[in-house]
């Protein structure tokens, strides 16, 4: 048990990194998360209070795949904290070592808001969460070697838990292997890839471009043809659009979230979030069968 004064101060850009850091760090760290779990992570306000948090941080965990490109750079510059600058001892680039999907062949914004590094929603695959937990543990150990055994123990426990859960989630979703789903944005690509679903139809015509009537008509046609029975929607996305599409195709709207805290009972808990997501998706797919 370390006193709060000695604890490593950790800032996570989005809540799933915060949740992983809290588990790995245990009592030895104090975690602050910048983005709210219910808001669009592409458009977070670069509030001065975030600069204060970053200026005092020992560790910054960012995705490193451009998701935060619209708001993190001025915060880091304002924080003027060498520890968390790129290359600093406390800088964690979560996506390091993760094979990202959807890497664009060319950077062309007529194709929507592409991320140069690839699809940044990689934490929806729990195997990637293990990689991130590893990165976080390594940095915590470097900065606070005294507590390293504790960090490693926590990481190993999380790893084991995720292994067991992956088995459980995989079994729950196994009956739906190859089933297509509709999502608002390509947020669920990694989740689908991990659990054998097919996520290739989006309410957005192109990433970051709002749904248009002709595109939605095309989506509805695909839903009928491919018998797609579920439309996933996140707290900040337009439920009205999803409902309109679902109503006309007989599909169900399913409330899911990519961030702990975005669904009731998942605050600060990555495993609880995945549990909730898997459970609602399984229920909806079973009902849609």
């Amino acid at each position, binding site marked *: 048990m370390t006193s709060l004064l000695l604890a490593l101060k950790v800032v996570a850009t989005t809540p799933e990194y915060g949740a992983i850091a809290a588990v790995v760090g245990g009592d030895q760290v104090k975690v602050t998360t910048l983005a709210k779990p*219910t808001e*669009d992570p592409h*458009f977070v*306000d*670069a*509030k*001065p*209070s975030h*600069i*204060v948090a970053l200026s005092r941080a020992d560790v910054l965990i960012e995705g*490193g*795949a*451009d998701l935060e490109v*619209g*708001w*993190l*750079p*001025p915060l880091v510059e304002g*924080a003027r*904290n*060498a520890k968390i*600058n*790129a290359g600093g001892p406390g800088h964690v680039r979560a*996506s*390091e*070592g993760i094979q990202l*999907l*959807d890497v664009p*062949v*060319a*950077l062309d*914004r007529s*194709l*929507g*808001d592409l991320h*140069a*590094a690839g699809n940044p929603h990689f934490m929806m695959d729990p*195997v990637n969460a293990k*990689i991130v937990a*590893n990165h976080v543990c390594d940095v915590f150990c470097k900065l606070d070697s005294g507590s390293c055994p504790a960090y490693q123990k926590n990481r190993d426990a999380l790893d084991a838990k995720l*292994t067991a859960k*992956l*088995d459980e*989630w*995989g079994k729950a979703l196994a009956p739906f*292997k190859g089933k297509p789903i509709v999502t608002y944005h*390509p947020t669920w*690509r990694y989740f689908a*890839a991990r659990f054998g679903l*097919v996520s*290739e*139809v989006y309410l957005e015509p*192109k990433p*970051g*471009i*709002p749904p248009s009537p002709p595109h939605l008509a095309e989506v509805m046609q*695909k839903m009928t*043809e491919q018998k797609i029975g579920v439309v996933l929607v996140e707290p*900040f*996305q337009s439920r009205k659009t999803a409902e309109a599409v679902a109503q006309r195709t007989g599909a169900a709207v399913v409330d899911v979230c990519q961030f702990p805290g975005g669904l009731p009972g998942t605050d600060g808990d990555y495993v609880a979030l995945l549990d909730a997501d898997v459970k609602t998706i399984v229920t909806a797919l079973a009902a849609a069968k």
Partner: protein
Amino acid sequence: MHRSFLVVPAAIACAIPLRALAQDAPVPTPTPEPKPITVASGAAGKNYLNLSLDGLIAVGASTEPDVPGLETGGHDPAQRGFTVQNVEVVFDGAVDPYFRGQANVVLQVDPDGKTNVELEEAYAITTSLPKGLQVKAGQYLTEFGRINPTHPHSWDFVDQPLVSGRMFGGDGLRSVGARVSWLMPTPFYSELMVSAQNARGETATSFGGVGGDVMFGRPLDPDDVKSMGDLLYVPRYDASFDIGDTQTVVVGASAALGPNGTGASADTSIYGIDALWKWKSARADKGFPFVKVQGEAMSRRYEAAATPLLPAATFDDHGGYLQAVWGIKPMWTLGARYDRVGGDVGDDPLDPAFLPRERASLEGTWYPTEYSKLRLQYAYDDRTGLKDAHSVWLQFEFLLGAHAAHKF
């Protein structure tokens, strides 16, 4: 069956060009032990330099034929019909582990069709000084208030506030110099900074200004720098508080103190206060909905030196604006602004640049994406001694290149 097979990959090819297609649906085996590999991480890591180009073009009309007399900003609409307000090329990137560098080069086409080039900013800023310190040096927009340090494309209206034109001229207060800032160790955001810059030229109109120009009816003949006292000093303090999870307040106070061009030992002091309140929904989609209210007030004391014909005199004037912008739903905003300037007119009672005036503006903006916008603005101008004016402007913006990051 055949059809859907064709249609789906085509639609996906737009959004997800590469790897996804090559990948088979993976087997949900529990733990293939992940092997960390090094994967290149995007444009930010691939380029030494981020490059972007932002174009801002306006079209519209006013009942006042003399548009430059109405619009005080160098990047405001300049005539009836079309105006290229601002085409800004931005270079930025890490210089080395100690500095970040940025340059904003602005191109502008004047009503005669001539292209003007301005080096608006070119500075380096430290990234890793201890104790919350940060130093910026080069040519930069002076951090006075909220509007002055920002570029036209980030404004909520087509034109700059009247008070900016009155106090800082058409191109804002900017000059070559250095600024030290201290992020104070308070529980809330609290920053203190002091800037020292050259006080001469067309981007320091309240100070040295340009030889031959006139301020308050007094001709200017700025001096060269002879001592530290001949520089412009700009201290600023700002603080910010969050109210709950969805509201943020920023308050600030600035001063600009320096010599002016009316003669030896003639000084100008400008004081300003500013405030911003913003509410943003906890379930914001693309940052909407939100409401923000922003205001600034400034007062200027201009000590004019005696001339062979006129005695020494002190002129006091003031101004400010209050604006509210409502982000109704994703990519749509509505805004209103009230502008007012007044105070001493000076020794040339006919110079319209120093007459009291008021203005009310309404705007509506649609952002097709965060890289483009279309804005319609109406303004009613009430100018002392001059005819009232009604103006309507349509503004278009496009942004190419590196993703702009938005300061609060």
